[in-house]
């Protein structure tokens, strides 16, 4: 809990809301409310794209949002496709205004999410949609980079390449200060990032 408090405190100045929720049902309700309240940036229709991941599947979002007619895509990897991102998935990612992912770790010290690529863990889902929603469990919060690097080296079943070919640290929403040093959120990546922490 100490780490969670630290995380919330560090996230505040980054424009990164950290929302603790107890249990999957409460989390589902909170995410669903967010999806209903926010408006799409590029079109009029709402759709959501999410990882196939136990933490997210537990929320049962497709059912939760069906009554509001908001489709939830959970694309599967297609190893046989020759292009970098399969056509169907690409369309889903580009058209969705919210992308929902889990994360491997979250560093309390800097409010940083650590996300590795994987079979059902598309990199584009935390990047291309206008709003990124991340769902993590309380015990995924660790102290800082020092702890992260130590853990990465010790993970038992991570194989020789424990980083995978893409590991990304995300600290807050996308931002730029390139015009007269004015801070603006939403340069190329998500304009908003919401972090839900599942408390058992």
């Amino acid at each position, binding site marked *: 809990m100490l780490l969670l408090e630290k995380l919330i405190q560090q996230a505040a100045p980054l424009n990164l809301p950290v929302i603790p929720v107890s249990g999957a049902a409460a989390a589902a309700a909170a995410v669903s409310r967010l999806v209903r309240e926010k408006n799409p940036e590029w079109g009029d229709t709402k759709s959501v794209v999410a990882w196939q991941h136990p933490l997210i599947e537990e929320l049962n979002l497709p059912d939760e949002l069906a009554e509001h007619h908001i489709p939830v895509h959970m694309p599967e990897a297609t190893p046989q496709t020759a292009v970098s991102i399969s056509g169907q998935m690409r369309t889903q990612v580009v058209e969705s205004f919210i992308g929902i992912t889990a994360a491997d770790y979250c560093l309390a010290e800097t409010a940083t999410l650590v996300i590795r690529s994987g079979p059902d863990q598309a990199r584009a889902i935390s990047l291309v949609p206008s709003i990124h929603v991340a769902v993590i469990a309380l015990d995924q919060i660790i102290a800082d980079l020092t702890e992260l690097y130590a853990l990465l080296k010790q993970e038992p079943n991570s194989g020789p390449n424990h980083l995978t070919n893409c590991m990304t640290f995300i600290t807050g929403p996308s931002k730029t200060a390139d015009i007269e040093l004015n801070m603006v959120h939403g340069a190329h*990546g998500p304009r908003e990032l919401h972090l839900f922490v599942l408390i058992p």
Partner: protein
Amino acid sequence: MAEIRTEHYKSEARKAIKDRTLQGALADVQDRLGKGTAKAYRELPEGPGLRLKAHEIRMQAVENLDILLETLAENVRENGGKVIFAEDAAAAVTECLEIARRHEVRTVVKGKSMVTEEIGLNEALTAAGMEVTETDLGEYIIQLAGESPSHIIAPAIHKTRQQVGRLFAEKLGIPYTEDPPTLTQAARKALREKFLAADMGISGCNLACAETGHITTVSNEGNIRMATTLPRVHVAFMGMERVVARLEDHDILFRLLARGAAAQHMAGYISYIGGPRQPGHADGPDAFYLIIIDNGRSRILADEDFREMLCCIRCAACLNVCPVYGKIGGHSYGYPYSGPVGAVVTPLLVGIDRAKHLFMGETLCGACKDACPVDIDIPRMLLALRARLVEGDRRWNTPPGNLVEKSAYTAWSLAIRNRSLYDGLRWLSAQAQQLMTARDGMIHRLPFPFSGWTRSRDMKPLARKTFMQHWKEMQKE
């Protein structure tokens, strides 16, 4: 190769000093980022001394570069990537063109990378018929304006919001506005199309990790993630010094990089990229190439005086505190690297003699060393460069310097070692300067060859009586 305009340092600097808008922008950058960084160092739990540790880590990597680069290449290959060593700019560019041809690339999106500026990559790709789009907002602005970056981290810092507004109105066809969020949104929209359509993404590399075989890219905007995730092909360029041995070496370095570059605790996005999309993974490029560039770095490595410069992580903290950069701006330095880092790196890359104004122009005040996250002793190297310029050095194709200056100093050294000669000369100049002293008691103009001294400042004449004369009189009393 990037165009080398280091010879125009003086005239460019003079222009820059008169440019009111630029002066305002530079003052703003230094006031905000320079001070912010100093504060961020002070607030480090380990204190500003952490920079010494970072220096050690970087220096160790530089001293073991051969082994680290081999390990890195081996591991990237194991991850499924291809690694190419390029001896100079031309070789690096040719390799990239060849990759583009092989993958039938027509459109390219780029993340900000200084080393690709150094090798002049954009011009080559464009000449080969490709459409190249810079995607960092600042780089995008200057690409649209047809200019070159004036700051390593904030490339368009010399442009006002009004200028950007007019530029976007003209080039993107949006209604004129000078509201930064609206302008950013316009660029976001235009560039999103480019990202989604691009065949190839190009990035630099902040600090590779040898033991795991990954490069890292750092940004706040997310543009580099876009450029390295969506296109079919990813080509990363890295100066050969940008590697560390172990994963945990990144711990201190990333924390300091964020503080040095933008007074942040952590950059918005850091990605470790080790190769193309792994089999079975959801997305990522089909092909990954890492081009490791020497382009003069081996020569720097071989020279013990300058080896330390290879520790540099191009964070731009030194620009944000340099009193010279703060007045003359980035363009005066005539090469992609500006400020204190440019004053050392550029001469080492393009020629000590050719870029001599850059290191002669710095003040040796030492602010850069205190701001540097890896504690590089830039003032020491500025002096070493000056020494090389005077003494000449065959390894650097530098002939011995100005003979007139040298004989003047030899004469001076003779004169101050001979009491009566010295006194005589002093008496003579005291007489001569009486003629030159204006009514306000200052000398406004010295005759040639000393006239340069008084071009921009007044000089106080020598005191009527010397210290020795005073001393003798006091002894008598």
